[in-house]
């Protein structure tokens, strides 16, 4: 009898509670999903070699991972610049620094230069699209470079990296 009672208390009650929690959780909303690898679309090359490399070199990609409203990402064909930022509704804001060894030497990205990306995410047919702007410390006083990046709306979720 004691065993049965303890089984009910320690197993039965939490199990019933679990079902209740699963029901309750259906009412919760989570932030919009923006994670994934966005291919940077071909664009007119900017004057700076570093920009050209980050946005148009090879298979340039903006790769975003997401934890709620917190974002982390990389920019460039080889994930060259690490970015951290936040999501607010459909607006993204990310910042990073060009780290030593992060970009190839020949593109002359100034080490320690800060990089800022802002973007708005939207649906575009079967794609998810980022309308983005890039600033670096070098161009902080000047105009930002606008670019567009996109990924399929449905994609293989496996996150190896």
């Amino acid at each position: 009898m004691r065993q049965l009672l303890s089984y009910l208390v320690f197993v039965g009650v939490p199990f019933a509670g679990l079902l209740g929690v699963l029901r309750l959780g259906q009412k919760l909303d989570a932030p919009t999903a923006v994670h994934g690898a966005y291919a940077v679309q071909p664009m007119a090359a900017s004057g700076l070699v570093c920009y050209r490399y980050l946005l148009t070199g090879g298979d340039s990609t903006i790769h975003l991972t997401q934890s709620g409203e917190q974002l982390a990402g990389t920019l460039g064909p080889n994930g060259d610049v690490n970015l951290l930022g936040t999501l607010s509704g459909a607006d993204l804001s990310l910042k990073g620094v060009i780290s030593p060894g992060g970009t190839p030497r020949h593109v002359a990205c100034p080490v320690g230069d800060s990089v800022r990306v802002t973007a708005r995410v939207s649906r575009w047919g079967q794609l998810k699209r980022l309308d983005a702007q890039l600033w670096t410390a070098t161009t902080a006083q000047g105009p930002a470079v606008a670019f567009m990046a996109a990924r399929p709306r449905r994609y293989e979720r496996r996150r190896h990296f």
Partner: protein
Amino acid sequence: MPDVLLLLSQIAGILVAARLVGRAVALIGQPRVVGEMMAGIMLGPSLLGWAAPELFHRLFPPLSLGFLSALSQIGLVFFMFLVGLELDLKLLRGQGRAAVVTSHASIIAPFFLGACLALFLYPRLSDDSVSFTAFALFLGAAMSVTAFPVLARMLTERGMLKTRLGTVTIAAAAVDDVTAWCILAVVIVVARTAEATVPIPVMVGGTALYVLLMLTAVRWGLRRLEHVLERHGGLSQDIVAIVVFFILASAWTTERLGVHAVFGAFLAGVVMPRDDQLVRPLLDRFHDLMVIMFLPLFFAFTGLRMSVILITGDLWIYCALIIAVAVLGKLGGSALAARTSGMSWRDSWAIGTLMNTRGLMELVVLNVGLDIGVISPALFSIMVLMALVTTFMTSPMLARIYPMRLLRVARHGGEPESA
């Protein structure tokens, strides 16, 4: 094509770091596996990437990590086979009442608390591509994992395996292990319903059929291996090759069905015949390569995916909360259930402490969760820290609850006084 020089440097660096940190933590009475887990994290962006970014970029450029990932996945497949092979299903049958209550409570209590925590974490650390059900079930499953292999080794090293405490704990951990993998399979199905590459009926029906086939026909067929072993007078290279093929085929099948490859490998281990001429020699052959090379690669792979940098501000509070809930659910749930089953307080706390060891099994579960996208990178990083903390706390807590003088009494059949 892989850059062979780079890959060799990566492997060498990982092995050296794992051995050094493993040795260092062994000096303070921790299992080496804790040090190897720490070494993996230290090689990632959390320490090396932060302290020496240039070296980090040179040693682990993003494009090179695919090969390291592939090697660690293969290692993981073989490791899960060994976990299945070491699992003695007889333990599940011959359980005492204490083990039944303890094992079930040690799963459902942390599972329930994990799901409750999901109510708080889902809007903060997830996104709308993951359903709440999948998120909550995964968090529950991740909270209820026990590191069966680490636990078995700890009990053996301390000579506790044959004590009542040892038998109850090992039986409860075995039940935990099987249950956790079943739950995780369900979570994968739930998580992948929205964007499955394999149709859901094929995934569910195919997996169920495959498990049934493995537990009946394949298991029966594998018994023939015992006759082959007798004829060959032991484990020949041909038999090892057959076993390796069998592991890979089983892993391939479950991966193809849309469930993770680790399930197929685990199942392959579970259905292997328990012949003394097969199990021990197989474990011996795989063990060293596994421990020295593949597990450190897996830890490094995990460390590279984990980043403490992602844990900022309030996330440290979430991290403390997750660790507290994990310990409360697993340690508290198991200890209270064991106590109400008639065990002494000292034994009950010892059982709770042992069951709270999550070790690398937690890392396996977390990597599966990150693979299928049900947890976010920040939550993954927090949960890896939780796995490390709960594994790290086991040895000192156990030494305090069960000092050597009391352990000697328990080994000789006496009951130590209640604490």
